[in-house]
């Protein structure tokens, strides 16, 4: 039942916030914040571990449309739980970030925000493909409203573009879901949308490939992978700060999650076939995002482009489909959520004070706002991958893992790291040092902002210095929690499980040797065998 | 009887053609009336005596009078012929006429596929039609009356203004 509540609480909280908006604009914030806090606490109880023998920490099935074999099937394993926790956490950060920025229609804003969070939460927890699709779309509409109603000047265009891009991808996924449903139904006589049923559906490689492309389209748009990224900079920069935090911190992760949870397990062979192409796209994304970030004059746009670059790492890690890289991708997802979210909050804070996001008109803020400058420096360093912070672990694991699979891709991806160091430091240099414009001097961050940023920093530090517990409880490492639909996946899992054992003994995870990580070779072998 | 059919057909064709192509509304209406009367004759020659009478009374009688009434009310006299003159030029006709001709050729082609020899049988006088109308088609007759009712209501409402 916890899982149902995890999804329902944000939704109810959103409704309550909306209704309480009539009483006063302060109410919705508190209502949303407390609902999310409750959700977070609820999800934390799952860390205790699930029932013995089950690969899910928690699972629930409720009948929904039995005629067509669709049910409400929610389940959480380490992967889902890590992301669900991130969702509740970043949700709170987003509420905090819109505390003073959203003055009009706060009730409706929080309804939208909470609905997005409910949608993301549902997407991370559903195991029924139809239900997953419903949640997948549920996050879209309120997000659209958040950008279109509370955004900046170019918001309509940005909102429309965001919606149409993602919707086009989603519809292709829907077609693929239906295709898979019928392939499975005609093959086995059992028509079902359930993940557990659909795993290991026998089908020809051509069919598998086409169906996989539908899923890939939806996930690649959401992630976003080059060349489907054009909606992202606009949407991020036009959205209100809270919206940017949710968009960058959570929505992008659903794409990556979908690839790990659905794309590979359901279509292992097809995914292996297309992996080399995706590696190239990922590397191009890493470098392209980093290079374009350097050319931006708009602070939020800059951060948005860095997101493209970071998500390129995630994509590379996933499509390496190798234990280390996968876990790296997961860590990177969580850390990117925290660090980019924090950078957006800082950008929002700057905007609130100076009413501009033009980097050219900023400078010398350090003297008047040292705390903000310090925070910005911290998250910029996290973003460039300073050892000791979570992002470093993630990027390092991804590079290490993908090097085994595609050395060239890993080498080029590493080049992206250099660019990211340049742009990260450039932001700090431009905004907080450098010549101060005439009207220089802004108020420093207040207690609320400080608390938000501190908690995000704590997450990064924790993941950077003591990642062990994280891998133990969550992550793709908890072998029992992995679906056993494909041999490849099991291969990857055993690889990680071996590594986890050593990690518990106290060695930094990045230095741990991979146990039996010959997954990719196995993949190629299977391909040639066909 | 066969002679009647062929002569009436020829009249129907010519008068319909004149009705559709004419540029004076009153003349066209008269041609159309002739055409409907010729159709009545065709029906008679095909043994549908009852329908022949209906055609003469309702089509050639009632409906045409309604048309005439509107044309007269709209004072659609000789002075207005010019605006219809432009559409009676051959150029205007070519395209649509070709379209209709294609349809016609298709239908004729379809008809010449094989002969449709009428079955020898009972005469289809008013009695047979009446029995059918008030037997299996009873609800249809009721519905036709509803159709006329809505026509009445509509003409009443719209004509009132």
């Amino acid at each position, binding site marked *: 039942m916890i899982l149902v509540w995890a999804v329902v609480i944000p939704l109810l909280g959103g409704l309550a916030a909306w209704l309480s908006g009539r009483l006063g604009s302060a109410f919705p914030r508190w209502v949303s914040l407390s609902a999310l806090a409750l959700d977070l606490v609820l999800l934390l109880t799952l860390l205790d571990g699930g029932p013995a023998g089950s690969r899910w920490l928690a699972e629930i099935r409720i009948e929904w*449309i*039995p*005629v*067509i074999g669709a049910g409400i099937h929610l389940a959480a394993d380490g992967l889902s739980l890590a992301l669900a926790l991130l969702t509740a956490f970043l949700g709170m950060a987003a509420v905090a970030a819109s505390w003073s920025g959203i003055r009009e*229609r706060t009730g409706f804003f929080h309804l939208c925000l909470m609905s997005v969070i409910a949608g993301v939460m549902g997407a991370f927890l559903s195991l029924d493909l*139809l239900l997953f*699709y*419903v949640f997948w*779309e*549920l996050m*879209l*509409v309120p997000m*659209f*409203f958040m950008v*279109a*109603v509370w955004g900046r000047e170019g918001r*309509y265009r940005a*909102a*429309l573009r965001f*919606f*149409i891009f993602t*919707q*086009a991808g989603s*519809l*292709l996924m*829907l*077609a693929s879901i*239906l*295709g898979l*449903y*019928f392939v499975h139904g005609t093959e086995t006589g059992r028509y079902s949308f359930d993940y557990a049923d659909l795993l290991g559906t026998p089908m020809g490689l051509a069919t598998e490939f086409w169906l996989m492309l539908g899923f890939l389209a939806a996930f690649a748009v959401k992630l976003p992978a080059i060349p489907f990224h054009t909606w992202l900079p606009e949407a991020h920069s036009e959205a209100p700060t809270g919206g940017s935090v949710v968009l960058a911190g959570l929505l992008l992760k659903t794409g990556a999650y979908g690839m790990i949870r659905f794309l590979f397990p359901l279509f292992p062979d097809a995914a292996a076939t297309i992996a080399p192409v995706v590696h190239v796209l990922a590397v191009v994304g890493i470098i392209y995002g980093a290079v374009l970030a350097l050319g931006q004059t708009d602070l939020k746009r800059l951060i948005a482009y860095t997101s493209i670059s970071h998500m390129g790492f995630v994509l590379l890690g996933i499509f390496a489909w190798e234990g280390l890289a996968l876990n790296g991708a997961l860590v990177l997802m969580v850390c990117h959520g925290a660090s980019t979210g924090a950078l957006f909050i800082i950008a929002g804070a700057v905007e609130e004070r100076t009413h501009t996001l033009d980097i050219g008109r900023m400078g010398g803020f350090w003297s008047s706002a040292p705390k903000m400058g310090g925070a910005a420096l911290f998250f910029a360093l996290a973003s460039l991958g300073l050892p000791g912070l979570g992002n470093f672990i993630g990027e390092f694991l991804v590079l290490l893992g993908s090097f085994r699979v595609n050395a060239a891709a890993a080498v080029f991806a590493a080049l992206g790291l250099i660019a990211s160091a340049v742009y990260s430091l450039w932001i700090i240099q431009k905004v907080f040092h450098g010549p101060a414009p005439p009207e220089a001097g802004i108020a420093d961050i207040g207690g609320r902002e400080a608390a938000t940023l501190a908690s995000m920093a704590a997450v990064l530090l924790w993941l950077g210095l003591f990642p062990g517990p994280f891998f133990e409880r969550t992550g793709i490492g908890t072998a029992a929690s992995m679906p056993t639909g494909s041999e490849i996946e099991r291969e990857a899992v055993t690889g990680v499980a071996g590594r986890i054992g050593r990690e518990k003994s106290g060695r930094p995870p990045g230095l741990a040797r991979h146990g039996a990580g010959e997954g990719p070779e196995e993949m190629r072998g299977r391909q040639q065998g066909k | 009887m066969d002679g009647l059919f062929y002569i009436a057909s020829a009249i129907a064709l010519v008068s319909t053609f004149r009705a559709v192509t004419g540029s004076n509304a009153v003349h066209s209406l008269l041609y159309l009336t002739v055409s409907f009367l010729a159709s009545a004759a065709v029906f008679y020659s095909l043994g549908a005596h009852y329908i022949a009478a209906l055609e003469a009374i309702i089509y050639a009688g009632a409906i045409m009078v309604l048309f005439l009434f509107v044309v007269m009310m709209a004072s659609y006299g000789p002075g207005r012929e010019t605006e219809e003159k432009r559409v009676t030029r051959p150029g205007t006709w070519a395209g649509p006429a070709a379209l209709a001709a294609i349809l016609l050729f*298709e*239908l004729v*082609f*379809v*008809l010449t*596929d*094989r002969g*449709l020899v009428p079955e020898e049988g009972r005469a289809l006088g008013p009695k047979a039609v009446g029995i059918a109308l008030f037997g*299996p*088609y*009873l*609800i*249809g007759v*009721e*519905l*036709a009356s*509803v*159709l006329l*009712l*809505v*026509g009445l*209501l*509509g003409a*009443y*409402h*719209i004509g*009132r*203004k």
Partner: protein
Amino acid sequence: MSIADFIAVLPILVLTIAAVAATVLAAFRTGHAFNAALAACGFVLALASLAPASKAAPRAVTALFSVDAYSLFFTGLLLGAALAVTLLSYGYNAGREGGLAEFYIVLIIGTLGAIVLASSVHFASFFLGLEILGVSLYVLIAYFLGPHANEASIKYLILAGVASSFLVFGMALVYTELGTMEFSRIAMRAGAGAGPLLFAGLAMITVAAGFKLAAAPFHMWAPDVYEGAPAPVGAFLASVSKGAVAVIILRYFLQTGSFAIGPFFTVFTAIAVASMFAGNILALFQKSVKRTLAYSSVAHIGYILVAFLAGGRPGTVAAGYYLAAYFVSIIGAFGAVALLSGKEKELDSITEYRGLAWQRPWLAGAFTAMLLSLAGMPLTAGFLGKLFVAGAGVGEDLWFLVIALVVNSAISVYYYLRIIIALFSPAYGEAAAPLPGLPLAGSVALGTLTLLLVFLGVYPAPLLSLLEKAAAVF
């Protein structure tokens, strides 16, 4: 005809009596509320009469009608839609010039035509039902002296007249070839060997149906007529009129198996794809909400045709669900327009809808929900409708059509969102004129439709089980 026969066609009889009674009573008592209440009562009674009628089903009533689960389901749907249109019309009509009694009588008669179509299995009832509906629509479209009403009505009646002629001529050709006008016998005799006359006849019937459904390439009239007609009549046109034709066409083709005839499958595929693309692409350029909805309804016919072409049980269920979802959403959308239209002028240009969400949050919310449903977003009926249609298509391996559906759904998002953005954008300073007060009946109808929209989008099981029964008829 036996008593059981009368009971089986009770909905038709109730509406006929209601129409006649309303006509007679109009001579004695006038008053807008009275007229509207009479019509609403007629529809409610007809809906109630479905219960005894369903006890008598399945039953063939003369050669003209078959009362079965299929006809009962769609009769109920059409009556429900007509009831909603009546409630929405009440607020819209209030205070308008000219007698209003005939409006409701003609509405009843038009609905009568529609439900005749739902249960007809014979060319005669097909034709009569269609024409009763058609003539009622001429009247309804031209009912008020709006700026475009005459024009819209003239356009509609010319094209509908041509369509009727095609329909009747096509029926005559089929009858000439096969010697029967009953669907079931047509199926039997056509199976023995289809002659060219049958083809020609079916082709002409298809053209006529295309006109009535406003499927491309016969859709040219739709935007003008929808724009010129009063908003509740637009709702009636888009739902009841179109739906009834879709219902009879589906029955005709399912029963006679005409989809299976090679060229017709291709032709219908072409019509479906053309409707989707024409409707959606032309809708992108509209400045008027009603025209946008008109083009959107052209596109929706394309989607429904995908379910037709899939055929069989899944296709019938999908078509039924889609129709129900589409009815709710399109009536709701036109209903929102109707509720917002003042006495003088309809609220039509998209720019006039700016800022509505802040002035009329509930109404704008309902309108948004309708538009999202038309766009096929989850948690609305439109999504499940589209899902079932796409599912039926995939099940029959009609990948080409499914991809067209997917691509078009993506295109359509743009113009629905454009209206939604207008609703939620800040109003033009003082330009936002005070809106008319919301009529109670219409608000209740719109609220109910919105709830229904969400219910059908979340919990489809009850409707599905009804549809399963309906589809089992064939």
